[in-house]
């Protein structure tokens, strides 16, 4: 019996080995790029190996019985119906196994929970359907939307072929830039409904809950780009709000923060200037794709019963509704979120102009940044 056991255990190990080898094919969990993610991966492999061995032993015994204890082989059924000894044994063994798993799991959980001594804090705020990142120490805020190419390819049209895009639905316009080898505290919360922030390579996910803040930490050891997605159903755009982390050295991170701040200031300053119809429409289309298309659709038709159409709508065509149009964008209405905080006056002016002139609305209305500014409370 012992030799059978030994052989079975060896076989179990051999069977789990290929799983390690083909990790790159996307069969197994990713090892990730943080000390924690490595430990999580190891814990996963330990529990996978344990259950594989149990499975092989248990099913092995069962199949042995199925082949040997069949009526067609002329066996006479035994009539035993209990045995206290074996019942105690097969209650005790699983108990010992789960205690063996619980101990390292407890240690790992305690380690993951410790967010102390972090050098940098980033707050990730989930929106329907994008992420906002606030670098608390550096006083910098960025919004991270699904990239334009994925937006185009994810439309329900025959011409869209997602196979053209390697990072389809896993790419954003503004990645979260983080320094390597630094303990970073990542706070998660949300603005509207519950989302969840997950980058598999970091080794954990955490819910982003409106009104509450969860804290987590990470320390990335290798520079690179790491991709993940929202993992809590959050409505229609749930599959369309990826998370991209770009890990760079501390120096590069500092340079990036400085450049980002500069360009944001420049954009804010230039957003007040008058734009031509051409400029407004080009900019407006880009803003529309990044912020409005998920609900109101590429053709401005919305989704019947849920998201109103803009093409031919009262608000987007009647001159007396220009102010209402702007305030809807600034402050939101019902399901529509407020965009006043994340878009500057020029962006809102451009997108409003675009909506009033695209899809046959052709009102000829031009909205300028100053018009938007006038509506800000």
């Amino acid at each position, binding site marked *: 019996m012992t030799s059978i056991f030994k052989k079975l255990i060896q076989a179990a190990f051999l069977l789990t080995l290929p799983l390690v080898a083909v990790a790159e094919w*996307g*069969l*197994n*969990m*990713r090892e990730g790029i943080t000390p924690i993610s490595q430990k999580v991966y190891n814990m*996963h492999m330990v*529990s996978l190996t344990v*259950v594989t061995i*149990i*499975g092989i032993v*248990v*099913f092995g015994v*069962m199949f042995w019985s*199925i082949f040997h*204890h*069949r*009526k067609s082989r002329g*066996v*006479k*059924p*035994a009539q*035993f*119906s*209990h*045995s206290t000894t*074996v*019942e105690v044994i097969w*209650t005790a063994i699983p108990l010992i196994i*789960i205690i063996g*798993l619980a101990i390292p*799991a*407890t240690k790992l*959980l305690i380690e993951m929970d410790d967010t102390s001594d972090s050098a940098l804090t980033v707050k990730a705020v989930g929106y329907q359907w994008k992420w906002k990142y606030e670098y608390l120490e550096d006083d910098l805020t960025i919004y991270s939307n699904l990239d334009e190419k994925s937006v185009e390819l*994810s439309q*329900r049209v025959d011409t*869209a072929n997602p*196979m053209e895009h390697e990072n*389809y*639905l896993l790419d954003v316009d503004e990645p979260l830039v983080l320094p390597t080898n630094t303990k970073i505290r990542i706070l998660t919360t949300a603005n*509207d409904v*519950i989302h*969840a922030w*997950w980058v*598999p390579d970091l080794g954990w*996910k*955490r*819910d982003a*809950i*409106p*009104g509450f803040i*969860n804290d987590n930490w990470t320390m990335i050891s290798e520079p690179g780009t790491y991709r993940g*997605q929202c*993992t809590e*159903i959050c*409505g*229609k755009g*749930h*599959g369309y709000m990826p998370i991209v982390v770009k890990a760079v050295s501390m120096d590069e991170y500092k340079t990036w923060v400085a450049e980002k701040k500069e360009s944001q200031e420049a954009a804010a300053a230039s957003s007040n200037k008058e734009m031509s119809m051409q400029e407004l429409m080009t900019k407006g289309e880009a803003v529309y794709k990044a912020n409005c298309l998920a609900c109101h659709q590429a053709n401005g038709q919305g989704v019947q*019963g*849920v998201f109103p159409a803009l093409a031919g709508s009262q608000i987007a065509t009647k001159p007396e509704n220009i102010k209402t149009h702007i305030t809807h964008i600034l402050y939101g209405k019902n399901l529509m979120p407020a965009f006043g905080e994340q878009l500057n006056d020029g962006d809102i002016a451009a997108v409003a102009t675009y909506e009033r002139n695209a899809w046959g609305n052709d009102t000829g209305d031009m909205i300028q940044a100053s018009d938007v500014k006038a509506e800000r409370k």
Partner: protein
Amino acid sequence: MSTVAHEHDHHHAPSGLKRWIFSTNHKDIGTLYLIFSLMMFFIGGAMAMIIRAELFQPGLQFVDPQFYNSMVTVHALIMIFGAVMPAGVGLANWMIPLMIGAPDMALPRMNNMSFWILPFGFALLISTLFMNGGGPAGGWTMYPPLVLQLGDAFPFLIFTVHILGVSSIMGAINIIATVFNMRAPGMTLMKMPLFVWTWVITAFLLIASLPVLAGAVTMLLTDKYFGTSFFSAAGGGDPVLFQHIFWFFGHPEVYILALPAFGIISTIIPTFSRKPLFGYASMVYATASIAILSFFVWAHHMFTVGMPIKGELFFMYATMLISVPTGVKVFNWMATMWRGAMTFETPMLFSIAFVILFTIGGFSGLMLGITPVDFQYHDTYFVVAHFHYVLLTGAVFALMAAVYYWLPKWTGYMYDEKLGKIHFWLSTIAANVLFFPQHFLGLAGMPRRIPDYNIQFADFNMISSIGGFAYGLSQLLFVYIVIKCALGGKKAKAQAWEGAKGLEWTVPSPAPFHTFETPPKLTKAMLEH
């Protein structure tokens, strides 16, 4: 009510439509439940086909994301509340009185009502798909604040949940009343067939957990329409509170679906092993322990909400502990087969597949219970694979086994064994092609409940979809087999299976409209299990 009039009724069972609408007969109501659940299985299955068709390849081909989310949500609600639960209640209705030597259920009129409100509940639910704003699309778990964004369908969803809850609670009361009051003399609790035991325990789970769900959804209703803020942080509430209440119902619910399946398997394996069930008493205790533990593990569905670490540790330990009594059950089934004289008719095949595949679902369950690693698994396709292994190749396979096992008793004819075996192999292969690759998808990073995905997930999704279509089509064969069996075939003996034990095999096949009008005299042999 004179005895004479009562006698008279027996010979003139109501016929036609009235027989079914006004029926108070446990066998007719059992049949109604089973047919209804089969219909729901196909409606819910059609939704699964839409899901798998959309996921066949990356990109959006057939439905828009909002409708996709509705399909995901309504598929789950229909399969859980419409297919698996009513099928279990149907089997309980048919078999419990026959197994304990009772003439009928204790509360026949309530029995009628608990069935007949079900079709109305599901008519309401399905009608929401055609309402302004679409059907429920926030997942069957109905988490706020997302669920509060639902359009006109919202109050209908809440009312549906109430109706289904009322129906199940009435069914549960009936089963408890029947088992505690109507057992034939000599049928002590520890002599009852294990199927009856698992159902009594399930009934207590239903009564304890469903009112909690009703409370939770009512709080949603007042949050939406009456200005309360139970689940809104802006008003001093907490969205996570809903999750705690929901899963306090939701985890016992998992066992409401699984325990009757355990009972079925514990009935079928001894029959075809021609050997008594191993460890009857420990089976009863294991079932009871699982039921009790199921009230202390709910938060393992929500490890990622950010609980205090002490809470996470408690729920991790409690969750891992459940694997002990569950393991005992699997070992007992194996020991029952050990040194038996097995034959492999369709019910036995489904039962063996159940033991293996349910255990695989149990393995991934143990992995999911390890909190620090669950942070990776949570809300990915790994979870989807896990719960489909325990619910489809678990609960549904057990229900299929039960139908094949008792069909001869219900119809008086043997089903077509050859077709039954083909149905078994098609279902088993297809279900594994469908769900096994989903483990890989989840581990590789594909979140659940998304209508579209990155191209790295394309291959396994296509394989999974092919398995899905094959599984769906194979179930048409099941319908054909059942109808064929109901219409005729080889006559079934009272004792349809050589090794079968239990009172249900002492009455003729098909079981007459009324059975055990006077309690049977039980001999020692009849009480063996």
